[in-house]
């Protein structure tokens, strides 16, 4: 495990997490959440949890994002906060 790499990933994670909850456009928030999940998946794969990283990439970055987008397309894209 290369700690510099991990650290950079963590910084990205925190930035993505904060961005996902502050962006006013919900679609952007969801796309950022998807990026967050993907970084998380890479991080886990790098931490020797290949199967979990794999699942997170399929579920967190894949299915969850699709479900979110489907839900947003049927409700509203704007958020007040």
């Amino acid at each position, binding site marked *: 495990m290369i700690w510099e790499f991990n650290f950079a990933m963590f910084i990205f994670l925190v930035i993505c*997490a*904060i961005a996902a909850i502050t962006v006013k456009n919900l679609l952007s928030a969801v796309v950022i959440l998807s990026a967050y999940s993907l970084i998380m998946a890479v991080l886990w794969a790098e931490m020797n949890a290949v199967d979990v990283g794999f699942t997170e990439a399929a579920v*967190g970055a894949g299915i969850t994002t699709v479900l979110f987008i489907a839900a947003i397309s049927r409700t509203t894209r704007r958020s007040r*906060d």
Partner: protein
Amino acid sequence: MIEDLFPLLLTRYNYYMAVIIMMIGLYAMIAKSNLVKKIIGLNIFQTAIFLFYISIADVRGGTAPILIEGSNALYVNPVPHVLILTAIVVSVSTTAVALSLVIRIHREYRTVEEEDLMRMEGGSG
């Protein structure tokens, strides 16, 4: 002193990161008024917990827990991975249920903001 502290911080920093991300998620769940934002916060919170579990399992210099013939490598602990696979299933089901609720709330009230919902329901208690 500082030299002692530094490796300690380095070995532990993913726990601190997990806690920071957890707090971000929890904040979003409590403080945000938009229901979709709440669900996003829930997702962040849950993945942060999974990160915590993976950090428990990780062994310095270990390899992924996949059996390779004839090698006696140092494996990382596979049990937390299995637990997290289960927890991911739970997490995605929760998200799906929550999103379908949001869609039905929007159909009923034409809004997904908690403040508006509170105001609309305020009269009847």
